[in-house]
């Protein structure tokens, strides 16, 4: 019988996209009234007046009336709730904050109208950086948040001080990550269409979380959710940025109702880079205590996250600090741990989850810690990791996180073999004599994927995501529809799920249509984030498919006058095991509906099944190795080789898995070397175009070598682990360690990302090394 799991099946999603027939949000805007926002040009101040000529009707907070603000919550005493108005009134808190909106017949006219609107603002000195926000007496972004601190979480085991006192070596440094933007190639957008017949609005939006968007908008507008349908059409990437409820969508839906028409807002790139969401603006102060053998005794971390002006819904501004706090130990055994993690408000664009969420930063910091400790102790970089990597599973981390079986050490050893460290060291020596500075960097990490409600409940989320529900229905022609609550945006999830279901039910994936991203069609679910969709929606698919398979076996058993337990299904046919007696699944399906009197013993007519899956979560792991050449005259870093040994459990579609790793690593390289959102002292963004915010091209991303390990975990019913974020999590650490290795001779170590040519030259100068 044909099996589909494990095959690099080309994606069913592709033909329509390849022919330019995919319908993204902006493609649905034909004939719509175009919504345009007037945004604050000032980072902080009091709104004195919004002036528009009488012929330009504008929507302001006053016009919106009792539309409620966005108020994300955490059930924690260390969290301060702040409300984000749908349109700013009284005060502005960051450049790009929407203040007013208007409608026109075309985008060009809408921009013309917006230019006629002036906003008078009494500007005040903004707080832009962490240092400014935390300075004693700093102006407060929100009066209710003392010290501009929106969350202040702490964790401490009893014997941290003792462990540090006993340490043979204490490595201590500050690690900084620049602010970064997810930059999906399709910016955000919404088309809200009022239907006079039903009185409902259908919102098509470039979102990762259609159901939550419906909840959030319904709450803001004070309407039942049944009044609103949210559809995610083709979504051109998200990477976390498209999880959150945003004011623009609330205004679009409100306007569609108010004016009984279709309203479209298509974000332009300037809006996307300045006023959507940012991430990773973090600074860690890290201390690690090691014994004489290089075993980690304790970690002490002070984690500061600049979370911008507001908290995002539903993840909240706790998402970065709390992830960093809980997952800092990563793949290592850490007996004693103290951490303080703060989310600090500033007059900048708000933070939202971005692929990896804090882990690219903490992994880079921890992996730098390992290399620094190895150097101090005279240990090999592999050896210090061998002595500290978790080897027994399941492992309960110091913060209480349970890590299921993985191949932490095996993946590293495999990577070391592939790269041949000894051979590299010899080459590195030779290169040095020729004035070429090569470096090798290692990154070992584990990635929490597919977390269900228990994981998020531990974070004390009021909106606690995690489960997924799947509804399967076979129609009378034997074609299967799988309705899922998860909502893919480019990952190829529909193909992968079809492969999983096909093997359970014994039909071909092409006979399975996966329906997602439509709140009228799919069960309430949580969308796509946290490397969860394959693990959780995939798990629910498998469970539902097993039930449906039993239904088919029961029906076939009656039809073939055999025991249901003797029925096998495969290649589209149900048959009595060991005989040639059988029936086509499509005949069975037709009979189940049209000849139901033939199945008196089967209580439920038709062929459908549902299942819900809500796992704790499963950890994938990987080892990345980067080999770089650093040009000390220009500060340029060239990546000579990049190897990934990934363990994502069972591979359902290896081609799609590798695609996820490719894209993740590219974003990790971007985070390590190129991308940074830059603000000036007044809170204006200096990187408002893709000519300034440097998304890497094919010229910057080297060929990537990928190898797989497959630890089959029981923590996931399919055996599959999530793989969406790992590439991004691991790559910066490998690059930073490689650059540090290359420059070790000059006493230069890298403790920041991105590490740009300018910074490398500056660090070399500070180390007393004049180039040339």
């Amino acid at each position: 019988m044909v099996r589909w799991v494990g095959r690099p099946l080309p994606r069913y999603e592709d033909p329509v996209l390849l022919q330019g027939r995919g319908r993204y949000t902006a493609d649905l805007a034909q004939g719509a009234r175009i919504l345009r926002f007037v945004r604050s040009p000032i980072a902080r101040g009091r709104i004195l007046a919004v002036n528009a000529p009488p012929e330009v009707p504008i929507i302001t907070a006053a016009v919106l009336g009792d539309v409620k603000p966005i108020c994300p919550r955490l059930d924690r005493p260390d969290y301060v709730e702040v409300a984000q108005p749908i349109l700013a009134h009284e005060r502005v808190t960051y450049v790009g904050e929407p203040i007013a909106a208007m409608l026109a017949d075309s985008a060009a006219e809408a921009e013309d109208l917006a230019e006629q609107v002036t906003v008078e603002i009494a500007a005040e000195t903004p707080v832009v950086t962490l240092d400014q926000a935390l300075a004693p007496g700093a102006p407060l972004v929100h009066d209710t948040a003392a010290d501009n601190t929106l969350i202040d979480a702490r964790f401490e085991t009893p014997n941290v001080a003792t462990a540090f006192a006993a340490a043979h070596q204490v490595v201590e440094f500050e690690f900084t990550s620049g602010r970064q933007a997810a930059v999906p190639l399709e910016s955000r957008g919404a088309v809200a269409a009022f239907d006079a017949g039903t009185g409902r609005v259908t919102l098509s939006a470039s979102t990762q979380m259609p159901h939550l968007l419906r909840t959030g908008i319904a709450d803001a507008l004070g309407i039942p959710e049944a009044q609103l349908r949210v559809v995610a059409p083709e979504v051109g990437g998200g990477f976390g940025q498209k999880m959150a409820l945003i004011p623009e969508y609330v205004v679009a839906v409100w306007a569609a109702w108010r004016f009984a028409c279709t309203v479209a807002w298509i974000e332009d790139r300037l809006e996307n880079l300045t006023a959507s969401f940012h991430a990773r603006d973090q600074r860690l102060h890290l201390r690690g205590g090691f014994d004489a053998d290089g075993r980690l005794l304790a970690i002490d971390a002070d984690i500061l996250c600049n979370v911008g002006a507001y908290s995002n819904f539903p993840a909240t501004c706790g998402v970065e600090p709390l992830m960093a706090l809980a997952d800092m130990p990563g793949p290592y055994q850490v007996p004693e741990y103290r951490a303080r993690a703060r989310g600090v408000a500033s007059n900048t664009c708000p933070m939202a989850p971005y692929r990896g969420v804090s882990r690219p930063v903490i992994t880079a910091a921890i992996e730098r810690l390992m290399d620094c400790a190895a150097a101090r102790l005279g240990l090999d970089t592999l050896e210090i990791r061998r002595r500290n990597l978790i080897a027994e599973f399941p492992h309960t981390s110091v913060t209480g996180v349970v890590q299921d079986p993985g191949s932490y050490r095996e993946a590293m050893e495999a990577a070391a073999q592939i790269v041949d460290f000894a051979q590299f060291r010899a080459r590195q020596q030779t290169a040095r004599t020729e004035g070429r500075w090569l470096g090798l960097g290692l990154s070992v990490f584990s990635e929490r994927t597919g977390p269900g409600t228990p994981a998020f409940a531990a974070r004390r989320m009021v909106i606690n995501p995690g489960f997924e529900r799947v509804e399967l229905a076979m129609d009378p022609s034997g074609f299967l529809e799988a309705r899922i609550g998860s909502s893919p945006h480019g990952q190829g999830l529909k193909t992968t799920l079809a492969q999983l279901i096909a093997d359970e039910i014994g039909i071909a994936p092409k006979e399975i249509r996966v329906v997602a991203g439509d709140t009228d069609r799919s069960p309430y679910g949580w969308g796509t984030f946290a490397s969860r969709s394959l693990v959780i929606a995939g798990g629910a698919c498998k469970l539902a498919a097993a039930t449906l398979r039993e239904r088919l076996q029961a029906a076939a058993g009656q039809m073939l006058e055999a025991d249901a337990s003797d029925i096998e299904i495969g290649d589209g046919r149900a048959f009595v095991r060991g005989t040639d007696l059988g029936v086509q699944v499509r005949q069975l399906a037709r009979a189940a509906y049209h000849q139901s009197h033939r199945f008196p013993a089967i209580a439920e007519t038709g062929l459908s099944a549902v299942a819900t899956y809500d796992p704790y979560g499963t950890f994938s792991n990987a080892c990345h190795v980067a080999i770089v050449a650093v040009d000390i005259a220009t500060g340029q870093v060239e990546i000579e080789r990049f190897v990934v040994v990934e363990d994502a459990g069972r591979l359902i579609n290896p081609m799609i898995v590798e695609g996820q790793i490719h894209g993740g690593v590219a974003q990790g390289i971007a985070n390590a070397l190129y991308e940074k959102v830059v603000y000036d002292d007044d809170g204006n963004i200096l990187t408002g175009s893709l000519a300034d915010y440097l998304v890497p091209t094919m010229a910057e991303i080297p060929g990537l070598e990928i190898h797989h390990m497959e630890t089959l975990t029981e923590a996931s019913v399919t055996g599959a682990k999530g793989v969406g974020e790992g590439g991004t999590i691991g790559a910066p650490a490998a690059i930073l360690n490689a650059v540090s290795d290359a420059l070790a001779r000059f006493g230069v170590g890298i403790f920041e990302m991105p590490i740009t040519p300018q910074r490398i030259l500056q660090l070399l100068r500070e180390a007393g090394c004049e180039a040339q």
Partner: protein
Amino acid sequence: MSDKQDVTFTVNGEARTIRVEPRRTLADALREDCGLTGTHLGCEHGVCGACTVLVDDTPVRSCLMFAVQAEGARVRTVEGLADGDKLHPLQQAFWDHHGLQCGFCTPGFLMLAVGILERQPDIAEPELREALSSNLCRCTGYQNILKSVLAAAAEMRK
């Protein structure tokens, strides 16, 4: 704004006359006046290349060109690539080799690659890499885009 004017050009072999404002970009004209939404807008400032189309067989950023500048030109978009149900070798290669994920940059990459390969069927990999670095993709890390274009080039040389 100033008055609209007629522009006549061919799109995917079909003669078209549209009436547009002089400020209308070719990208907007294709999407809104010709209904060809396969050409995507990623930045509207000429960096990402998602809007790449062929104008007289040369890849151009259609967001950086006014529709009126296309007067008399031969414009090709992603919608014109396949021959009925038969995919163009580049489309087929992108499908076979997982050269796309979210698909938003894909039409631009396809048209860029068509322009390159029609002019230089034997282009060497380093030069191809450089030429393809004109456009941005955020999903694939470019690995399978390069692989797809190399595979298509081999197929097209047959």
